[in-house]
């Protein structure tokens, strides 16, 4: 899949390109709106990642022009403008998603997948990755042949790790996304929760240990099996 990244900040572009390439996408990059529009019109890309504050042609104007011309190319806006009116404007003029800066490349990749599937993550009934399947409706997890009903927090934690298998998430990041707290509670609540998931998903299975791997001092990640 070919993605066009329109971002004037070279250093941001650099790690986004690297992250996307690692995820298997082919990426083209331009640093201004006018060249970006010209490239889009060549119609060689499947999706556009668009910054807002761009030289020559502003991201919003670019998108407006694109939609006025009837071009339905999927566009994800990346912007430091995070206020509600800006986000609403973005969607109003036809953005498929709006990701505020600073962002995680993993989240960007998750959103690219969602946009390409034409589904928002919340509407997906099943999420699966490397022998692990999550049933969003019943909060049920299936790891190889073992399945278990998870609590709300356990389910959210697993779903969060599934956003980017192999990527290590810190306890702080997990707390922020799963418990929605911005402070350090100074407890091992994340570890306890991970232990509970591991116990539930490896109860009867010895050959496949749990889907979550602990990286000492760094955090947790979803295991990427070579066989997969």
């Amino acid at each position, binding site marked *: 899949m070919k993605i066009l990244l329109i971002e004037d*900040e070279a*250093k*941001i572009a*650099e*790690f*986004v390109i*690297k*992250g996307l390439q*690692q995820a298997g996408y082919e990426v083209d990059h331009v640093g201004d709106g006018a060249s970006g529009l010209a490239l889009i019109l060549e119609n060689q890309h499947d999706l556009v990642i668009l910054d807002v*504050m761009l030289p020559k042609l502003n991201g919003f104007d670019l998108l407006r022009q694109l939609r006025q011309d009837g071009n339905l190319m999927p566009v994800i806006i990346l912007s*430091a*403008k*995070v*206020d*509600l*009116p800006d986000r609403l404007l973005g969607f109003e003029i036809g953005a498929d998603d709006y990701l*505020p*800066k*600073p*962002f*995680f*490349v*993993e989240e960007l990749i998750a959103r690219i997948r969602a946009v390409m599937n034409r589904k928002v993550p919340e509407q997906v009934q099943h999420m699966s990755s490397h022998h692990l399947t999550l049933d969003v409706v019943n909060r049920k997890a299936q790891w190889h042949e073992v399945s278990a009903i998870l609590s709300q927090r356990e389910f959210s934690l697993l779903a969060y790790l599934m956003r980017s298998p*192999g*990527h*290590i998430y*810190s306890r*702080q*990041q997990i707390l*922020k996304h799963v*418990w*929605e*707290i*911005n*402070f*350090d*509670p*100074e*407890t091992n*609540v994340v570890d*306890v929760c991970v232990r509970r998931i591991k116990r539930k998903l490896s109860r009867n299975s010895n050959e496949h240990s749990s889907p979550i791997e602990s*990286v*000492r*001092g*760094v*955090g947790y990640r979803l295991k990427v099996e070579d066989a997969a």
Partner: protein
Amino acid sequence: MKKSFKFHVFIRICLVAFGIIFANRMLAQYFLVDQLRDRTHREMGAGLVNCHTYVDNQIDFLHCFNAREKGNITNNIADFYVLCDKPSAVTLPGAEQSCSNFQKQTAWWGQELKEEADPRIDYANGVIDGVRWQGVRFKADPQGPQIWLSDDHIGDLMVQMWTLRDRNLIYVLPTIITLLAALMFYIIYIALRPIAMLERTLAQLTARNLDQSTQLVAPFKEFENVTQVFEDLRVRLSQSFTKARRFASDASHELRTPLTILRGNAEQLMADLPVGSDVQVRMRSMSDEIERLIEITEKLLLLSRADANSIVEELSDVHVSRLLEELIKDALSFHSKLKITGDIQPGIVWRCDKTLVNQMIHNLYVNAVNYNLPNGWIHMVLKRVEGGFELTIENPTPEAPSDLAERAFDRFYRGDASHTRRVDGLGLGLSICLEIAKLHHSTLSLAVTSQHTVLAKLSAPFERL
């Protein structure tokens, strides 16, 4: 409580009315005595002329005087005139002695009257035993009949006059005051109407429409200066808000871009490093600090947007009761050493910005944790009150600074909790809470109770005012 402007004006007008009445009476009394004395003098002269023309003996003269002078101003004191003509014809008690006294006072004659006087009459004025007397006689006949009257009796006349005036006043004054009150209310209404019109216009002016210049119109010519002052103020405020908004927006962009680069590269680098290696652990620690930096930046940007009045809430119906129950449940697993209890009334739903309100409640909770005793407690109460709800979060505190209630919401203010534990944070949490509360038309306060506890209280209305 402030007193009513109408009441204030009413009292002032009553005072002024009474002052005018009192001053009028004092001045009248002062000027009228002289005037009355002259008039009495003149009438005495007129009576003398009239009666002397027709009669030639003392008794008839007296009868004539009493009969003819009825109906004039001196009528009421006619009985007190002393008539001196022939010693044998004295008619009043004590008049004999008086007449002999008067006849000795030749120097008294020749008094000038202020009012037009009869040129044929000679007027006298003088004091005997502290009593002032006035008399009249013919210039052509100094030995002829004389009429005398004391000031005391003129005084009596004055008293009678004032009694009459006062009696009138009893009936007239209430009418005057009623009319004055009606007039006053009307004048106040007329005077306040343009101000009320201005007030209505100004009330429509909010931070969101400050940039619209056509709203403020003077209802009358005289108010143009006032509206101009408000207009200038609006322009200055609008400019200042615009600058603040621009700052918030620029700062947001300028800070978020390098943070995005930092975070992106750190995460990338971490993924590239050998799993579980020391370098990766150190990189994670750095990455956590970047997260902290992002969090601080977000807080500062939120405050700067609050100052610029550019926060737009994303309203939705939030189940506050459930949110708090969840928090208490989580808190029990987060902080096992603290006793966390709650008295949560179920079913309280609030239309608010969920993210911001969540942040506010978490900040208040974290504050209660950070400034607690080592094995302390936190008690949360959520209850419905008239038109809204009230949330209180209470915790014991080791040593609350005396100015905590006043300064707790100041930016970068931190209560000294160094005796108990290391407190993480910038001192921005509560000021953010205050801004979020204000945005939701709610009030937030912090108080230190007599039981050495800190009580944070949020009062929020269900309906937006």
